[in-house]
């Protein structure tokens, strides 16, 4: 049996008396590429931010690598976050630093590695995402696709066993999206990463996902394998796959 990496239990979130998430529970096992899918505003990003400990505590528990997110203090948090890579929708690279400096940042801050090794590691990760030429460029000098690849390079610089991706394909053309998907698949296969991805891109899901978590109106409407998701009797999920593959609503 595969090890359970993420375990979310009975997570309920409300803002200003609006219920965003209600009794959300799911789990992700090691080596899976789990996709959190749902309509805009269904609560996907809220789930992601709670898993990352970016939102205030809410009823329910989120356990990652056996660590309860609610019990993260400054010291534990530093060690905990080293095991995660997070790939933000807009890249979230620091604009005042070059691409190389951005990618090197976690290494400089968390390790005592010599500068030349750090530089080599940055070059290796940039090469992995086909972005060698962007070493000295600033984020503002990159195109949307390049920005995302640079963000992916930063997310994996510490070789984290768990990678979170927030809508990685948003705004990408189909070719760039396919390249990004291949990269994520390679990371899973070559580095044994577990990937949790929030996305709307059905083509991307069909290419790489092996688990689907469908969020509808703040609740988990479906949790299962990709194959099960495609034949699910949840009408909203069926509509996603139908429309996403070119069918009618």
């Amino acid at each position: 049996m595969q090890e359970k990496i993420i375990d979310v239990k009975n997570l309920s979130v409300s803002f200003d008396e609006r219920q965003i998430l209600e009794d959300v529970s799911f789990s992700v096992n090691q080596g899976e590429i789990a996709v959190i899918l749902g309509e805009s505003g269904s609560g996907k990003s809220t789930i992601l931010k709670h898993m990352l400990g970016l939102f205030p505590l809410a009823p329910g528990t989120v356990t990652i690598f056996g660590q309860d997110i609610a019990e993260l203090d400054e010291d534990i948090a530093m060690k905990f976050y080293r095991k995660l890579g997070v790939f933000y929708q807009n890249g979230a690279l620091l604009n005042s630093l070059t691409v190389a400096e951005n990618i090197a940042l976690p290494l400089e801050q968390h390790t005592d590695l010599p500068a030349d090794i750090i530089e080599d590691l940055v070059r290796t990760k940039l090469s992995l995402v086909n972005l060698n030429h962007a070493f000295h460029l600033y984020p503002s000098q990159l195109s949307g696709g390049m920005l995302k690849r640079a963000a992916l390079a930063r997310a994996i610089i510490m070789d984290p066993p768990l990678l979170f991706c927030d809508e990685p394909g948003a705004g990408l053309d189909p070719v760039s999206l396919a390249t990004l998907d291949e990269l994520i698949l390679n990371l899973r296969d070559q580095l044994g990463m577990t990937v949790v991805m929030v996305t709307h891109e059905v083509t991307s899901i069909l290419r790489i996902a092996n688990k689907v978590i469908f969020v509808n109106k703040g609740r988990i409407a479906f949790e299962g394998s990709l194959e099960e998701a495609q034949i699910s009797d949840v009408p909203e999920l069926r509509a996603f796959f139908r429309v996403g593959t070119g069918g009618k609503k």
Partner: protein
Amino acid sequence: MLNNKLTISNTAEFLHDLDNLFRKTKETNLTIDLAKLNEIDSAGSLAIHQLPEIAAKYHISIKIENADEKIKRKMELFRPVAVNFTNPREKKEGLFMVLGEKTSHFFTEYVISFLYLVSDILYWSIKDLFSRKHRRKGEVINQAISIGVNALPIVMAMAFIIGLVLALQSSFQLRNFGANVYIVDLTVIAMMAEMGPLITAIMVAGRSGSSIAAEIATMKVTAETDALQTMGLNPIRFVVIPKIYGSLITLPFLTILACMAGIIGGAVAANFYLDITPEIFFNRMPLVLYQKDILTGIFKSLCFAFIIVITGTFFGFKVKEGAEGVGKSTTSAVVAAIALVIIADLVLGILFY
């Protein structure tokens, strides 16, 4: 009978005419004939749908007929939506309830979170003095240059002008009493203990306070602070502490230089308006300038530096999504920083009097 078209360009006029008609007519049953209407849009459709309701106010019953298929389809498409859009937060409450809620909101949102931030920044400022590992190389120097060194020309120019104007305005009064030489006392004490630190702080608050707030707000909006956090880096420690060190290092120097510029300004005015030569002016200066005034000025500048960076940081982190939020945070940061600097100046002025 409605002719030709009813679109967004003539709907208001149509409703106005109809309102006049309803007011004047004695009829209680009217028919609106749409036979000649051949173009309608969403505004026109909604106006037609609203007619019975408008007419009912005048106790008139309306019948709408003869619309062709095309017009009917449009009117079917653009119907009033029967959804209750009431805001769940909109509650009718008494004055004291509202006042109580606003006060509680102000304390929790501003006062308490400001105090939390102050304690957080104080903690990391002291802790990071002994741990350089988490500080990016050269960042404190960069911040010192950005906050302090780059502000030097404008701060000195302003201080010079204020020193000059202060001496100029005072010279008329002093001359009346034959107390010309006291212009030195007035300018030196005012600049060293009060105006120098205050002018410097206000200029830096306007210049760097806004830039700190805008930088942090933008980082928050673009999820850069989230990214730092999920890389295991504390945004306060990584972004704010170098600014604290940079401003604490440079603001005292900037203040001393501003005081000097102000005193020179005063000396210029004294020379031209009171016939006090620079030689007399600067010879008298050591007699009226006490160490306490200099130390007070430096201490004030350190407090002001802390206030400016913390206020910029606080409003930066308070940003609501979007570019508009960044603008609002920046404005609030500057206004609050200047206000807090003046309040702190009053408190310190009383303490060191």
